């Protein structure tokens, strides 16, 4: 009966992910931002396990495991550590105020659905509508990167773009080829490590993680 419920469940996960990214946009506190990101990752894991079970694809289990290890356990732990060390807890001044961002976000969701509609109609696998959601997640996180003025939220935004991608991958195409999955995961890991190091160094050079301090190089 889970087979029967599967589409609904996947769509449920999808909606959850979308909702979470909206939540991220509205969230000011960095630590809870990280928690939201963790939950998003968890939802992603759930969705992929579900799809793997339904479509009998062991690959999806592996990718689920990768996601779990990376996005649910390692990265949140590291980010928490980072903000504890650098004690940046709040990200108050956003470029655009939150409500406006939400409105724009809704516009983006509509845009991405309209974009994905023709495709999802002709997609025959069970998670048809989820491409639009994935696209929406990507764009929303992108916007979050734009609006946030501290380094950590920017990275979280970047990572949740990654989430959107992975969700698209598993839901629309039942997982990329394994090798690609591994490559992506590896890159992500390295990237996060490097960025972690960077944040410490930027902090020590410019003694702030406020990225608006990073405006020395420009056309004058």
């Amino acid at each position, binding site marked *: 009966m889970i087979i029967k419920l599967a589409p609904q469940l996947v769509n449920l996960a999808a909606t959850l992910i979308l909702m979470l990214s909206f939540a991220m946009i509205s969230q000011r506190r960095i630590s809870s931002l990280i928690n939201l990101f963790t939950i998003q990752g968890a939802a992603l894991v759930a969705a992929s396990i579900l799809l793997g079970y339904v479509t009998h694809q062991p690959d999806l289990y592996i990718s689920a495991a990768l996601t779990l290890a990376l996005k649910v356990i390692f990265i949140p732990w590291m980010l928490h550590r980072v903000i504890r060390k650098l004690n940046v807890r709040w990200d108050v001044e956003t470029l655009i105020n939150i409500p406006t961002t939400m409105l724009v976000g809704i516009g983006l969701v509509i*845009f991405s659905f309209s974009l994905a509609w023709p495709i999802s109609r002709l997609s025959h696998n069970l998670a048809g509508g989820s491409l639009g959601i994935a696209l929406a997640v990507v764009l929303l996180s992108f916007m979050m990167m734009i609006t946030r003025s501290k380094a950590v939220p920017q990275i979280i935004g970047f990572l949740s773009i990654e989430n959107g991608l992975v969700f698209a991958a598993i839901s629309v195409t039942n997982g990329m080829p394994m090798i690609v999955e591994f490559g992506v995961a590896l890159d992500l890991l390295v990237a996060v490590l490097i960025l972690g190091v960077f944040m410490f160094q930027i902090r020590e050079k410019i003694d702030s993680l406020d990225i608006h301090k990073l405006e020395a190089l420009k056309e004058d």
Partner: protein
Amino acid sequence: MNSLIHPAAWVHLDWVLVVVLAWLVIGVVGVFALRRFRFVATVLFPVSALFSLLLMALALSAAGSAAEVAVLPIGLPQLPFHLRLDSLSSFFLLVIGGVSAGVSAFAAGYFRQGEGTPPGLICLEYHIFLASMTMVLVADDAYAFMVVWETMALSSFFLVISNHRIPEIRNAGFIYMLVAHVGALGILLCFGVLQANTGDYTFANMRAQHLSPLWASIAFVLAVFGFGAKAGILPVHVWLPEAHPAASSPVSALMSGVMLKIALYGLLRVSFDLLQTRIWWWGALLLAIGLATALFGVVFSTVQVEMKRLLAYSSIENIGLMCSGIGLSLLFSAYGMKTLSALALTAALYHVISHAFFKSLLFCSTGAVMHATGERSLGKLGGLMRYVPWVAWPTLIGVLACAGLPPLSGFVGEWLLLQSFLFTTGLPSSFLNMLVPVLAALFALVAALSGYTMVKYFGVIFLGQPREEKLSQAHDAGMWERIGMVWLAAACVLLGLIPNQVIGLIDPVTQLLVSAGLAHSVSANGWLLVPVSIERASYAPAIFLLGVLACFAVAYMLVRQFYHGRTRRVPPWDCGYPWQTARMQDSAEGFGQPIRQIFEFLFRMKRELPSALDAQPRYRVTVEDPLWYWLYLPVARLVERISKLIGLLQQGRIAVYLMYSFVTLIVVLMVVKR
């Protein structure tokens, strides 16, 4: 090229390539003898002069013979260098050979050890310059043409800035290079039009294309812009008065004497040879531009106070005259009047070759004067005739030729051009018919004014009393300098005296371009130059000269016969003012003053008038080219402003950068969605 093995079977083209190769070799040798100045000066340059003579001989023997083609195994894979030697090329080869022979000989005596580029390197650049100019003439596809064309620009650029310590010289080089490059882009686009989407860049293919009038006109305008930028027609002439004073004299002699003509060659090649259609307004346009340029150039050259600037502006004037000749010829041939078109073209080409010689002669003379005195400003020269006769007398010939006086070379071209102006009344368009007298009048005015300029040039430098004490120590030109200048002067006289033979050389060119020529009519009556018919017009420089000389001689002898030849030397009359000094002679500024007054509207003048109370009253007037302020500086400011605006896009805020990417993504998505 197929018969490289046995030189017996070589055609002219192969020998031309040999000359080019020899020049390159000489240049490379010069690099190896980088600082051994004596060797470079007294061995390499004379040798290259010999090769120039060889080139000249080749051009003479190739004149009128059938076109020769060759393909070099270099270039783009689909497009190796195509070479072609037809009568048009060989005529201009004649110019290169003849002039460069004299200039190289002069250069052998000219270059000195000094600051800036070492002589060996100058030797390399100089010979690459010569070689590339030669290659331009034989190039037969767009790629080869552009490559050698830009090589010519590049080498001459390095020659111009060879004394690169001085910022002004660097700026001059910069302006020159910029104009040259933009012009080259224009030529590039012109070829892009001509190849008509066939992807085949050989000139043969371009000749075969038949373009729509619109495309043809675009090509023509691009060609006028591109080649005009090199030739120095209005309004892209600004580099010329900057670059010529900056360069060393032999270089400016080559640039002014030869390189400008190469640009005209390109114009002729495109508008008469590659373009099949001809439209009347092309000719009118070129005619108008040409005369405007000529007037502008001559008026400015009369008010210059610096030798080389004066000559540079006079070059602009002459280029204008040639352009008007070409334009007239286009006009005629657009209306299918072959003979008249040939007449105008002959006039233009005649002026090309004569200007090449006398202008390079004059530039060499400035070089010699600068060596003798170390002065380049007219205001500090004077009375040199007594100290440097070997410079003065050839210069006098050059000056008379440049002033367009009979029986020297400059007059023939102008005479022919005036003739073709006279016959313009046959044009079907009444408007043009009305226009022509005005243009002819303008032309006559220009010719007369150039006389004014030349009198100023020669009079102020060589005549009168030395304006500085040190001038009396001026030393005369060395042997090589003398050889070079005498050669060029002789050419001026010869070109003036045997017009028929020269026209015989030009005839194949006009036959090729407008399929008509003057040879048959001039060859009919020996010493008389008769363009059309003896009733219409005739001119015999030789008899003319004989007449003047005969009167001279007879008068001289009769005076000696009936009277006496006694003379007494006394100090000149001091006009009742015994304290006058050499500085009180009329200055160069003073000589140009009437023209400054008459053509005031053309100039941008700054006057400093002394007040009655000044302790040391000082009068200064500077004349500037208004086009800087009307055209160039505004453009520069515009670029400045635009780039400021664009700079605002990039203020270092990463969020904004991300926004760019975001918006771009959205926009692209919208584009692909529909």
